[in-house]
């Protein structure tokens, strides 16, 4: 009895769903960004699992996971800078109070 690809994919799908749920329902912009990181992690688990089970092109998935990690780290850094900026200008980081672009 070995770990099958389906088990890993379902685990990653569960993590992705929970991350999406958090990104849509949490109030603090910091936690929203952290939930997006959770979704990135779920995608990386998928890529690593596919590369583990795929045979000849075994490492391609891991290279893609490296690039995803770079992009997610950049995204998080910028979002944290935006959170600091918002707190300084509006004194809040609650996403439901940040409605300046709503018309």
């Amino acid at each position, binding site marked *: 009895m070995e770990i099958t690809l389906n088990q890993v994919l379902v685990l990653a*799908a569960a993590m992705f769903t929970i991350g999406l749920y958090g990104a849509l329902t949490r109030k603090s912009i910091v936690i929203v960004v952290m939930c997006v990181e959770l979704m990135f992690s779920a995608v990386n688990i998928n890529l690593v699992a596919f590369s583990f089970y795929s045979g000849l092109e075994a490492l391609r998935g891991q290279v893609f996971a*490296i690039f995803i990690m770079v992009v997610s780290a950049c995204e998080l850094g910028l979002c944290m800078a935006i959170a600091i900026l918002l707190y300084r200008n509006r004194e809040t980081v609650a996403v439901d109070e940040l409605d300046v672009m709503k018309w």
Partner: protein
Amino acid sequence: MVENALFYLLAGILIFFSLKVVTTKNLFHSVMSAFAVLMGTAGVFFLFNASFLGVTQILVYAGAVTILVLFVVMLTTAGDAYKIAWEKAPSVWSSIVMVLFFGGLGFTIVSIEWPVGERLLLDRTRPVTEGLANMLFTEYLLPFEIASVLILATLIGAIVLARRD
């Protein structure tokens, strides 16, 4: 089998702490749970013989991301208006929608016959990092350079955004 037990343990940790991230009211606890999830992800990487990725995950997410996010949490809860615990409990309807979404996703995954090749990475003595480096610096050299330009742009952008002027 030991790998099965490890996988189920990691899966349990990942699901439990993911749910903790989205349900707890305390922002600090939420970020620490997210840290546990990211470390569990590194464990899954090690389990699937992606040792370089696992180490990178630990370095980037333990050494950089969690500390940065904790700093931002503490800085943005410093005023009177927002204490560290001000998240609301999740509503029933959003939970139902989430379960339906997961059901659809899981059904799709289970119903597809995924093509599985020969598992070369099952051999744990196989040098993964060397192969990664070969691929990264030959075939994926242009994306690699573009990624470094992206990091530089992010660095400058973050400084410009957060600077007091």
